[in-house]
């Protein structure tokens, strides 16, 4: 089949073509410059004492003062620890659950039932964090919530004031994250499993391998490159937290900050609630730079394993 990858036409035959094609990209280029590249130059804000009257360029330089304040505050450690630990939990549990779901869906004899289960599990991915926060509230509300009123009270257990109890939130947020993403991720794994040559399974079945043996010795080994690559890419994003999950689901409750504050929510709160541009942009730059380094390292590792799967 002739694809675009086929031999290019000699440039001389279409001198204007390149410029016509270039003109198609203008809207995209403008959007990238405005919303992605100009903010990259804005990282100098982190090194300045911003004064609105003087503008960004005219404001005096502060050097690393903002970073000094940030890393001397206890927040820097809390938000770093939180985001890293949450992401580790999401990576480990998320991978185990979605791989298990994908393998189970693949082995389902009743295809229609399998597709139905997949569709239902995929649904939470389409709900906004605002809606999910309300769903969670209907369970956790102190005086009205399903858990306190329908489960704890009938069992004679003490009601829990969920929204001021930081200890329980690592479990709640991990559960909510699994609830939202397991269906979505299992679709990706299921696609890889569907790409496995069926003759492997047929040959194994002829030799008398049980389903369990086939999963262990055929499906899992052939799935492992995808798992490793997605995991490495997730490690590259370990400094980034989904702001909807960490801001909306705990309802922005102050007592929960010790276990729910991550870098993204910290940057948002210091900018919007406290108006502290210096600290906020310092934390943002810290996240960008360490995040960038982690992406580079994880990509290097991916390239070692499978050059086709690496990002660049």
């Amino acid at each position, binding site marked *: 089949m002739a694809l675009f990858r086929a031999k290019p036409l000699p440039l001389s035959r279409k001198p204007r073509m390149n410029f016509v094609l270039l003109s198609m990209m203008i*809207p995209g280029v403008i959007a990238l410059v405005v919303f992605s590249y100009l*903010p990259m130059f804005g990282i100098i804000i982190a090194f300045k004492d911003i004064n609105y009257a003087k503008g960004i360029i005219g404001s005096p330089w502060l050097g690393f003062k903002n970073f000094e304040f940030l890393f001397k505050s206890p927040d820097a450690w809390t938000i770093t620890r939180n985001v890293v630990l949450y992401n580790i939990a999401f990576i480990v549990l998320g991978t185990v659950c979605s791989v298990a779901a994908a393998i189970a869906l693949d082995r389902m004899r009743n295809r229609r039932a399998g597709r139905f289960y997949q569709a239902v599990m995929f649904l939470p991915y389409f709900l906004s964090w605002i*809606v999910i926060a309300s769903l969670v509230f209907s369970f956790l509300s102190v005086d009205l919530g399903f858990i306190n*009123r329908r489960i704890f009270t009938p069992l004679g257990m003490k009601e829990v004031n969920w929204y001021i109890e930081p200890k329980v939130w690592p479990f709640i947020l991990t559960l909510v994250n699994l609830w939202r993403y397991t269906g979505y991720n299992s679709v990706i794994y299921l696609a890889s499993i569907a790409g496995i040559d069926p003759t492997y399974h047929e040959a194994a079945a002829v030799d008398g391998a049980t389903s369990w043996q086939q999963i262990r010795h055929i499906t899992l080994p052939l799935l492992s490159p995808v798992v490793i690559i997605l995991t490495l890419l997730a490690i590259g994003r370990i400094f980034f937290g989904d702001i909807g999950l960490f801001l909306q689901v705990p309802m922005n409750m102050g007592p929960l900050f010790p276990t729910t504050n991550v870098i993204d929510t910290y940057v948002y709160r210091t900018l919007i609630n406290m108006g502290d541009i210096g600290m906020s942009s310092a934390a943002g730059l810290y996240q960008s730079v360490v995040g960038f380094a982690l992406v580079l390292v994880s990509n290097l590792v991916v390239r070692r394993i499978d050059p086709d799967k690496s990002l660049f």
Partner: protein
Amino acid sequence: MIKHSRLAQTVLHLVFVAVCIACLFPLFLVLGISFTDEDTISRSGFNLLPKLVSTEAYRFVLRESDAIGRAYLLTIAVTVVGTLVGTLVVALYAYPLARADFRWRKGFSKFVFFTMLFTGGLVPWYMICVQVLHLRNTFFALWLPYVMNAWFVMLMRTFYKENVPVSIVESARLDGAGEYTIFFRIIVYLAKPGIATIALFNTITLWNDWWLPLMLVNDSKWYNLQFLMYRVQSNIQYLSTMASSLSGVSADILRRLPSRTAQMAMCVLVMGPIVLAYPFFQRYLVKGITVGSIKE
């Protein structure tokens, strides 16, 4: 033939039924609460099934506040405009990148790709939006920052490469068609499934967005559905102030407003269109994700 043990299949079905119940239960709980009257709720708490079906919460939400009607219209307008423009911008940017005869293809690929790796962070982005573009409290604030998406460009580029044969472009060119004619008359049709996938992702992103209004809107005129719901949630009294500013009712009546059930009724109204449209677009998106994950 692969042998399936009966028992294993039954166990699998049981596990999946349990998982599906876990996925759907919160939605039904909220639906149940929204149809319960406020008195029952404050006496016995949230429950799945109302003993007596009440539409009090919906009547309150729909009649007492035109804010929701407004937010609905605004969200629909933002979703339509944002999806059209965003999909077009991405489709146009990705097309030359897929053309092997485009001279600057590598440079522009890197240009878009780098934005996936490094960001300037929230603060500079915010200052550009507010101080340079003056987006605060405008229609554009609600969709313009999302028009370009590096991930969609990558997906679309792959789709063109795999599905559009170069011979068609060649023969159209021999017939004297210009690049724009080729794109809008031929390429768009051949790449329809890919464009549709991106349009669907855009639609869902815009419908579910609360982040842009959180950052860039403080005038209630520009509250979209999700953000209005956020305000209700973060301050349950907000509905009361809305109602009081509209009709000037007394404090006694305000206290009896169905605020909890109204919150859940709003939740149902906000997720309703997505959940109802879900069976139609679900299969499409599964296909889109599958293509993206295998090929990338």
